[in-house]
């Protein structure tokens, strides 16, 4: 809503002021005009009355004039009267009465007065000799009377006519006497009504607007945020109303957001708490799915994780699906075109709000009834790496608000961390298990030579009796020493292995790089093991033996060879061992192939770990450190060690070493 600069209240008052000004001018003009009209009427009446008076005085003068002629015979009197009469008549004619009839009558009177004057003068002349002219005088008087009658009639007619006019004028004036008052009064009433109307209207609107705002304030104070204040006018109060509504709206919105955010936070807290209690990935998955479905109002949801070999996506937990669907999704190739695999492999979050968007994520969107109407699928990311995906499906169209999107992403984040934690916990449990196993093996391995050594020494001690001067025979002693030394050697080797392991752990193992002939080293070891090989009944078959020199730590490489050879002897006793030494461009490959018990597939990846042994066969000794040490040594030489094996048909360990290690690492 836009507002003009000056408000309607100010405008109304301004209007009222202007109105007052106009009224005053109108009032003044009105009174002036009506009083002027009245005044001119009065003037006219006055004029008419003047004519009436003049006519009356003319009649009086005419009478005295005729009287002077007929009765007094006084010329002086006559002349005085006659002059008066003429003056009066002339005055009237000069003043020119408006009515033509009256004017005509006065003109007639004047004309007759002149005739009368002539006759009168004749009479006065005759009167100088009355006796002689008696007849003539009486004749003239008769005619004079005729003139007098004419004048009299004219003047009287005029008088009557003028009286009529005066009467009419007076009636008019009298009936109009209240006109100025009426004009003034009427205008005043008109002004009063309009001013009252504007004033009342303004105050009513103001009051109404203010009341609405007051009412709204009460309502808002009571907590009713849905109350709307109507905007009555585009004035200050209207502005106030709009601002108030805006404020309430914002208040409401922020209260709502706060509530939603609070709900979400408490849910996330619940989830976090549940995660912290979850000890394995399945529990974590179930918690994620259940809370997510509840929060989003989804029809179903599932968590899937990428397998160790990063080829398949395994369903961890799901909710809201049929058994059939569950089985279908149990395991999917990571390259399959499905929402969960796409988000897991591309690390992109998908929020599909309708079926068209959903369909675009499927390879064959042939059956829409099988597809959800909307879905959200987000990757589970851990240190920038995808470990799986979290998917929620809806059987109705769904608009994802920013808060909901954030929630799903936050949930996925929490889930990834919880899954990692659960995984770490799982791993730690396993590691503890392995260590305990190692300890039992190690104690057994260490105890065997010590027991043997102790028995030999006790045997020798028992046969040695100084008081009787008795001692074992030299032959016997030689056997005791030979066995003891053998057992001590075994102990030494075990302790050396443990030392090596701890050195690797501490990173303190040092290497002496020098050039040597690998083939002669191999031959030397084989010579050393000749008797042992004979005991194990393992004939050596050398398939290829390239004469090759490498730069490496001779002692450590020999250690690796010994380890591999003894392993082959240990697990492939009674079967031949095939050895191949091949020189490649920049590397050399040394392979030992036995025909022993072999290594199960699932163990092939872990046998190079610490304390790991593929077989728990008790009749085969060993700490399970040999391959771990070998791997560490080879990797320190920037080489690699790998295994190929078929259970029950033997294993091949291949050692790949560079001819020269890169100068950087030396």
């Amino acid at each position: 809503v836009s507002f003009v600069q000056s408000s309607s209240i100010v405008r109304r008052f301004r209007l009222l002021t202007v109105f007052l000004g106009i009224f005053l001018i109108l009032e003044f003009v009105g009174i002036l005009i009506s009083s002027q009209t009245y005044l001119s009427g009065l003037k006219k009446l006055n004029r008419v009355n003047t004519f009436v008076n003049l006519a009356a005085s003319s009649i009086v003068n005419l009478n005295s004039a005729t009287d002077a002629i007929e009765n007094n015979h006084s010329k002086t009197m006559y002349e005085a009267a006659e002059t008066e009469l003429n003056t009066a008549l002339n005055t009237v004619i000069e003043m020119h009465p408006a009515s033509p009839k009256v004017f005509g009558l006065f003109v007639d009177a004047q004309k007759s007065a002149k005739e009368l004057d002539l006759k009168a003068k004749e009479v006065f002349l005759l009167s100088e000799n009355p006796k002689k002219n008696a007849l003539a005088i009486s004749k003239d008087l008769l005619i004079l009377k005729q003139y007098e009658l004419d004048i009299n009639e004219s003047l009287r007619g005029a008088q009557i006519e003028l009286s009529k006019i005066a009467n009419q004028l007076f009636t008019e004036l009298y009936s109009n006497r209240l006109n100025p008052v009426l004009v003034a009064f009427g205008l005043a009433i008109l002004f009063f009504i309009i001013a009252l109307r504007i004033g009342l209207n303004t105050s009513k609107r103001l009051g109404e607007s203010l009341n609405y705002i007051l009412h709204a304030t009460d309502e808002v104070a009571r907590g009713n945020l849905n109350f709307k204040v109507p905007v009555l006018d585009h004035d200050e109060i209207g502005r106030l109303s709009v601002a108030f509504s805006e404020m309430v709206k914002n208040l409401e919105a922020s209260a709502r957001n706060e509530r939603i955010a609070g709900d979400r936070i408490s849910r996330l807290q619940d989830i976090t708490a549940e995660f912290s209690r979850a000890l394995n990935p399945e529990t974590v998955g179930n918690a994620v799915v259940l809370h997510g479905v509840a929060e989003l109002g989804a029809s179903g949801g599932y968590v899937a994780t990428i397998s160790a070999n990063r080829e398949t996506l395994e369903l961890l937990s799901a909710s809201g699906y049929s058994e059939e669907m569950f089985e279908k999704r149990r395991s999917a190739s990571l390259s399959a075109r499905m929402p969960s695999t796409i988000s897991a492999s591309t690390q992109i979050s998908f929020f599909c709000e309708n079926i068209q968007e959903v369909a675009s994520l499927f390879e064959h969107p042939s059956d829409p009834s099988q597809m959800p109407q909307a879905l959200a699928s987000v990757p589970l990311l851990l240190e920038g790496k995808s470990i799986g995906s979290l998917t929620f499906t809806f059987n109705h169209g769904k608009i994802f608000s920013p808060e909901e999107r954030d929630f799903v992403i936050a949930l996925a984040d929490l889930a990834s961390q919880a899954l990692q934690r659960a995984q770490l916990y799982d791993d730690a449990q396993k590691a503890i298990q392995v260590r305990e196993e190692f300890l039992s093996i190690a104690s057994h391995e260490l105890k065997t030579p010590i027991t043997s050594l102790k028995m030999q020494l006790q045997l020798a001690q028992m046969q040695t009796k100084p008081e009787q001067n008795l001692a074992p025979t030299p032959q016997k002693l030689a056997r005791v020493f030979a066995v003891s030394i053998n057992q001590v050697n075994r102990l030494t080797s075990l302790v050396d292995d443990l030392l090596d392991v701890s050195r690797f752990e501490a990173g303190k193992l040092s290497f002496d790089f020098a050039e040597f002939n690998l083939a002669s080293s191999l031959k030397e070891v084989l010579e050393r093991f000749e008797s042992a090989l004979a005991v194990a009944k393992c004939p050596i078959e050398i398939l290829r033996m390239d004469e090759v020199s490498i730069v490496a730590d001779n002692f450590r490489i020999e250690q690796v060879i010994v380890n591999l050879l003894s392993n082959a002897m240990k697990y492939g006793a009674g079967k031949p061992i095939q050895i191949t030494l091949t020189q490649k461009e920049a590397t050399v490959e040394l392979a030992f192939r036995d025909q022993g018990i072999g290594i199960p597939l699932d163990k092939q990846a872990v046998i190079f770990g610490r304390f790991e042994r593929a077989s728990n066969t008790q009749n085969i000794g060993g700490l399970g450190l040999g391959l771990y040490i070998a791997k560490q040594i080879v990797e320190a030489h920037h080489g690699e060690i790998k295994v190929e094996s078929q259970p029950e048909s033997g294993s091949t360990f291949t050692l790949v070493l560079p001819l020269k290690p890169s100068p950087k690492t030396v």
Partner: protein
Amino acid sequence: LKFSRILGFAIILGAFTLPAKSQEHAHLIFIVHPNNPIKDLTEQEISDFYFKKARFWKDGSKIRFFDQSPNSAAHRTFMQRILKKTAREIDLFWISEKNYNGQGAPVAAPSDEMVISSVASLPGSIGYISSTDEDLSGVKKVFVKGLE
């Protein structure tokens, strides 16, 4: 309107009484100023002149009527034969006329002789005489229908 009814009534009344009185005064002669071109008049016209219902001649000059004194035989004859009203009626008429129109009764001359001399000297004048013996050389006699 009221007056005209009275007048009408008076005329009818006069018509009944006329034959008897006309026997008594046989002569009534109307004279005008010699310059007046008029030759004959009707009784009604003369009555109108007397009562000032007609005030001007055809040429525009003013009609000036000379009556005779109310006691004269000529006036009575004139009243009976032309005006066909009683003296009282005539008096009332003039009182009313004077008040409402300002008109007064015509000037009355004392004798036939005075009528003749006045008519002869005043243009536009008209008068009546009862005597047939008077010298009418200075005036002009007009004929009135049904009067001879």
